[in-house]
């Protein structure tokens, strides 16, 4: 019963936390570029504005797909914070991404198609590392349940340093940060970089943004799991990781998809796979 409460708290609070994080992100990014930056609440103003704009749809299936994307994203975070099966959580997340891609494919714009294809490549790039991470958690705790993993009190980072670094690598993809923001970026960009949202307007775009906030909070929650033995260290490291992502975002130029795919698989197999092999040898 208590665990469901955590899930519900996530559903209510995550958009606020996610929006605030997005506001902090925009201010830090601006400061890194020696600019003043927008007000902290700017992401909320933007989404409220989008909700009041007229929504133009190029295909009547677009809105249902985007709604499914949002619902499954919320459900992903709900399952995670409720302490449920982490495999299920990540597969629901995958379903959510697929609905996003379908929404982009439902439009006739070539830019939208390009964005959807790039997003598929990104999914292919990050999935191996995600699966290795989950196997790593299972190897240590003997359970796929978030509740058991956190309740075990084992400092995961001690056993899974390689997996943690590998996961940080693909986290840049999930956070839509440069150098890996090939299909969608949280900054204002031209057609190709924001290809997947080319034909989305008004409330549809607002839903994408809200889903992105939900996703960010869920991912930061996942980072927390590596440090769940101490809540303050966990929160500190989680925020430090977010700052690191912003720094990477501002320090690197966008890469080609071949580079993203190659390096994230190398990271997955060297850091993640290597970590797993060592675990199998030394930790029984």
């Amino acid at each position: 019963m208590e665990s469901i409460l955590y899930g519900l708290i996530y559903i209510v609070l995550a958009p606020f936390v996610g929006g605030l994080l997005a506001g902090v992100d925009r201010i830090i990014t601006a400061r890194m570029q020696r600019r003043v930056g927008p007000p902290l609440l700017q992401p909320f103003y933007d989404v409220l504005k989008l909700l009041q704009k007229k929504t133009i749809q190029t295909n009547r299936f677009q809105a249902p797909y985007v709604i499914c994307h949002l619902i499954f994203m919320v459900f992903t975070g709900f399952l995670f914070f409720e302490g449920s099966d982490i495999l299920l959580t990540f597969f629901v997340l995958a379903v959510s991404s697929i609905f996003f891609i379908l929404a982009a494919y439902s439009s006739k714009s070539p830019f939208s198609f390009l964005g959807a294809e790039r997003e598929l490549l990104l999914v292919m790039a990050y999935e191996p590392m995600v699966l290795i991470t989950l196997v790593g958690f299972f190897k240590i705790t003997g359970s796929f349940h978030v509740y058991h993993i956190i309740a075990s009190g084992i400092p995961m980072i001690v056993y899974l340093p390689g997996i943690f670094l590998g996961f940080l690598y693909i986290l840049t993809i999930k956070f839509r940060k440069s150098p890996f923001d090939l299909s969608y970026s949280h900054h204002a960009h031209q057609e190709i970089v924001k290809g997947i949202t080319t034909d989305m307007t008004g409330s549809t775009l607002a839903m994408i943004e809200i889903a992105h906030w939900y996703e960010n909070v869920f991912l930061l929650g996942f980072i927390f799991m590596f440090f769940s033995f101490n809540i303050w260290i966990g929160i500190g490291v989680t925020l430090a990781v977010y700052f690191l992502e912003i720094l990477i975002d501002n320090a690197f130029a966008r890469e080609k998809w071949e580079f993203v795919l190659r390096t994230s698989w190398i990271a997955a197999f060297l850091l993640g796979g290597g970590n797993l092999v060592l675990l199998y040898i030394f930790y029984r």
Partner: protein
Amino acid sequence: MHYNGSSCNGCDIEVLACLTPMYDVERFGIINTGNPKHADILLVTGSINHQGVEIVRNLYNQMPEPKVVVALGVCATSGGVFAPCYNVKGGADKVIPVDVYVPGCAVRPEAIIDGIVKGIGVLEEKRKIMTETKTEA
């Protein structure tokens, strides 16, 4: 969003200057996007020539309501010195409805920011009218 009609690039450079750390329009939550479907305010620089008519009309039609057009520089407001040219139709208001006129040659970044912020005011009014008509209907 920014559209360049047949500008001499003077005003365009000043539009870019608004995005630099010196002026930083993001202080007002304004960001430059290349996608008309994500845009609220259309900036037009330069006079409109006959070849550009369809393009600027198309861009305007792709922007979702409510939307605002800001004409930047004397060429976009009236055609400027190019108005009598045989290939020039005139200012941006010959093709699409313009809400804010910002004269200057080239238009100063301060004036651009002032014009856009005025445009945000117009946008707010249009939004109110839109929501009122929606509730009546």
